[in-house]
């Protein structure tokens, strides 16, 4: 093979690929650098909103008000490594704990479901549920994130059983999502296992 041919056929494609990779990695890195703080802030805000919603607190629309409500009313209880074990929720400027929120992870159809589960201070009944992360089928299992589904858990008591949509009558029942039995069952497991977890974490540390 001639020298010019080696450069054209072997070396130039490699150099071209390296250069083009460098250019596009630089562009995406710059965009990521400019937006990473906003993304981290969004994640943090989502967790704060989830904790307040699960605790049954009326959510303000303004993100700044959400931050303020969280800072005034919620205390994060952490372990020795700094990991949050549970959240204590009070009335503003009060020392009396109104409710607790634990974050639980369960197995959904396509991946993990992360949920915030709120309890009354006696840990006997649910304050609420917020789905923090899920990758269930949009429009089907993804409906676990819809308001009508989440709202039905307020005041319910574990252990919970599922009934068809529109049929829940007792405090131990909740309405399943038609056509999404796996996702419904994952939420049922999360809710039912969270009471024992909350008792262990909260009562065990007091």
């Amino acid at each position, binding site marked *: 093979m001639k020298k010019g041919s080696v450069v054209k056929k072997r070396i130039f494609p490699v150099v071209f690929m390296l250069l083009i990779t460098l250019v596009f990695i630089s562009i*995406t890195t710059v965009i990521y650098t400019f937006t990473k703080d906003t993304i981290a802030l969004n994640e943090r805000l989502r967790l704060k909103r989830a904790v307040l919603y699960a605790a049954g607190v009326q959510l303000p629309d303004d993100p700044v008000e959400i931050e303020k409500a969280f800072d005034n009313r919620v205390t994060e209880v952490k372990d020795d490594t700094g990991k949050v074990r549970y959240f204590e929720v009070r009335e503003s400027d009060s020392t009396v704990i109104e409710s607790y929120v634990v974050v639980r992870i369960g197995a959904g159809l396509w991946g993990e479901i992360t949920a915030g589960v709120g309890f009354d201070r006696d840990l006997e009944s649910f304050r609420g549920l917020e789905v923090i992360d899920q990758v269930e089928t*949009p429009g089907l299992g993804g409906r676990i994130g819809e308001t009508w589904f989440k709202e039905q858990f307020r005041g319910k008591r574990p252990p919970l059983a599922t009934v068809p949509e529109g049929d829940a009558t007792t405090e131990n029942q909740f309405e399943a999502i038609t056509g999404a039995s796996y996702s419904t069952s994952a939420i049922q497991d999360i809710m039912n296992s969270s009471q024992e977890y909350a008792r262990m974490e909260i009562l065990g540390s007091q």
Partner: protein
Amino acid sequence: MAGFKIRKVFADDLGANNPVFAQVLGICSTLAVTNVLKNTVVMCVGLIFVTALSNMTVSLLRQYMPSRIRMMVETLIIASYVIIVDIVLKAFLPDVSRQLGPYVGLIITNCIIMGRAEAFALSNPPGLSFLDGIASGIGYSYVLIAIAIVREIMGSGSIWGYPLLGDWWTNWSIMVMAPGAFFMLAIFIWIVKGIRDKEEGESS
């Protein structure tokens, strides 16, 4: 001349050479995202953005790009634009980003983008390639949006998340699952082909 070429690009991509119902490309996302209109619209905007810019970039580089590595380069370009869409959604539309989940990343594998880069951008100037990307994206979008409107109404009784049909309506679960998209896409292609065959029959 330029105006004629642009009109031809749009006429082709929206009609006779439509990526979805004529070339049957981009079917994975047609099945996946069309059960909810909001997700479909965001997916379509993302696809128009990626197809237009990747077409233009491939066209700009076409005279320098060694042909034996062109598909690697195209994939890199497409992936970079998809990552940009993903980052922008996470930063500025976090709720939509969460709902779309892995689908945004899957724009990379959408056959329409690579198909237009190979079939059009490699042999046309950047401006026209950019417009071809937009036209292909719109051609893809209107089919998906039409399917999504029917699927969301029948499957969830709502449109854009707002209840439309009320309590009397029993949701068709099959419409929010992939088979519902197969039925709707087949019906869509059937209607369009029927109309076009009729028009061709009348003109000949």
